[in-house]
C-alpha cells in the first residue's frame, strides 16, 4: 500500500475504512492524481435544461 506501510496503518487514515480499504477512490495507491482521494460530487446536467439542483458524482469507490 503506502511506501510507509511499516509505519502507517491505513485503517487509521481518512478515506479508508477501519480495515485499510480505500473508500473514496484510489487515495494513496492511485497513480492518477486527479482521481486520487476525489470522492467528488459534481452536478451535471444538459446546459439550459430544467433539472433539480445539483447532482452527484461520488466515486464508485475502490474497495479492498
Amino acid at each position, binding site marked *: 500500500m503506502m511506501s*510507509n506501510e511499516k*509505519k502507517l496503518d491505513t485503517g487509521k487514515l481518512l478515506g479508508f475504512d477501519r480495515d485499510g480499504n480505500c473508500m473514496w477512490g484510489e487515495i494513496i495507491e492511485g497513480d492518477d*492524481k486527479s482521481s486520487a*482521494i476525489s470522492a*467528488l460530487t459534481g*452536478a451535471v*446536467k*444538459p446546459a439550459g435544461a430544467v433539472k433539480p439542483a*445539483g447532482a452527484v458524482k461520488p466515486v464508485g469507490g475502490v474497495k479492498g
Partner: protein
Amino acid sequence: MKSARGPVHSSPQIDVGRGIVLRLAESLGHIAQSGVLKNNDLQDTLTSLGGSLENGARLHPEGFACYFAMLRALNDNQLSAAQTAAQAMATYELPGKVVPTIRPLHDTFFLPEQAQQMRAHFASDSLLSRQINPVPTASVELFQDRLKEALELLANLAPYSHATFTNITTEIIPVIGQSHNGMTFDGCSSVERWGAILINMQLDRTALVLAETLVHESCHSLLFDLANDSYLTLNPADELYQSPLRIDPRPIDGIYHAVFVLSHMYRFLAEVAQNPETPNDMRQEANTLMFTRQQAFNDGYGVLSDHAQLTPAGQEILNSARARVPESVS
C-alpha cells in the same frame, strides 16, 4: 399542482459534521506517533491540531487539502513536501462555530496557485478543470449578494436545515461554469476540500433554488461525514443505474448520494413551505418543488430498494432519509 406534505424535520443533530473531524484527529495523532514526518516539532504540531479538533475545533477546507497533499507526498517519499503540507495544515484550524465565508473565484480572493489547486480538487471525469472559470470583477459583488440572500433565507425560513448546513459548510466558492459537451454543472463538493461548496453562478436561479442548491451540496459533505470509516453500499462501481438527479447512469454509490441529498432538499423546502413567515409566492414555489423532489426521491429510493447491497450503516442512513420524505403524494 398537488402539494407534498408530511412530517419532515426533526431537531438537527448536535454532532453533525463531527465524525469526519474526529476521524481526522485520530489520523493526525497516528501520523505524529509514527514518526514518518521525521521532525519532532511538526509531530507536536499535528498532535496539538488533533487535540484541538477533538475538543471542538474545525478545519478549513484548505486544511483538508493539505492533509491529503501530505499523504500523497508521504506515499511518494517526498518528505519535504509532506512536511510543508503538515505545517500549512496547522494554520487552517477554525473555531467550532463559524459563519460560512463567500470566496469568489477571483484574483482578489485566490492567488493563482490557490485557484489552480482548488480547480484540481473539484475536477473529475464529469467536471473538467477548465469548466471552472473565474467570476468577472463586475459580478463579484452581485454574486456575493445573491448568496448572502440565499443564506439569510436558509437561516430565517429553514432553521433546522440551516443548523445542519452551518455544521458542515465553512466556505462557498462562486464560479462561472462553462458547458462541456452540452453539459454544465450546478455545484460540486469534494472530500479533498471538505466543508467547501463550489457553485456555478452562471445559472439563473431564484433565491429559494439557490438556497436549495447550497443545501444540496452541503449534504454530499454530510454523507461523507456520516460515512467517514465505513461503506454504505457494496455494489461494484461498474454497475450503473438510472439516477434521479443526473441524465447519465450512475453507480449505486451515486444513486445513494442522490437519494440522501434529495431527502434533505425536500426537508428544506418543507420547512420553507410550512414557515408562517414565508411569503406566499415563495411558499407556492416551495410546494411545487417539493412535489418534484419527492418524485425524484421515490424514483431513486426504488432503485436502491431493488438493487443496492447496503451495509448496516447504509441501511440506517437510508431509513432516516426515507423518514424525511412521505411516500405518497397527498
